[in-house]
């Protein structure tokens, strides 16, 4: 199982990196991805999630090869 994890906006600065590559086998949902990259923390309410460039629920499933992204509320326009 290989998942690319990406961070944007202020979260990128908080994480101190732009992305991660996960190889863990016990990842089922977006929440599991967050736990794996944040030393077991719960996903903060205000952080948005995307799987393969579409918005996703924290409970959404992830599979091998997916790109998962986390970011703060968007502020374009």
């Amino acid at each position, binding site marked *: 199982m290989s998942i690319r994890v*990406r961070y*944007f*906006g*202020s979260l*990128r600065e908080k994480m101190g990196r732009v992305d991660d590559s996960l190889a863990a086998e016990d990842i089922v949902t977006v929440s599991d991805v967050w736990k794996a990259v944040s030393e077991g923390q719960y996903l903060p309410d205000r952080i948005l999630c*995307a799987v393969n*460039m*579409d*918005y996703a629920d924290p409970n959404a499933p992830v599979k091998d090869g997916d790109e998962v*992204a986390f*970011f*703060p*509320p*968007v*502020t*374009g*326009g």
Partner: protein
Amino acid sequence: MLIQLRPTEFDPYAELQRHQTETPGHAGKYGATCAFVGTMRDFNENETVRRMFLDHYPGMTEKQLEKIAEEARSRWCFLDALIIHRVGEILPDQPIVLVAVWSSHRGAAFDACRYIMEALKSRAPFWKKETLEHGERWVEKNTSGY
């Protein structure tokens, strides 16, 4: 429909003119055009803003803008739409976003243009970081435009 991200300054009125002229089959068919331009101000929340960096998520940003435009097209009857959004370093008084809708009737033009702007503000993956007189800050949240 045309959706573009621009790394450098653009002139929204020249873009409108060009898109309208270059789109075949439109002449004489649309009666209403509604355009919105978002421009960078030199202040925000009582602070002077010197410049701004607009982060985005290449691939997802375009994908979400396409979805928003398709949603608008499924809800209102219009002939064409144009969305141009800046990314990267932006200075005060430079345009950030242009949304325009061409339709037969003005109600659909206003409604669809505003819908696209609101959806863009709440769902398109862009993030603003402001450079103030002293220091920097990420803009936390967009407010509703309704």
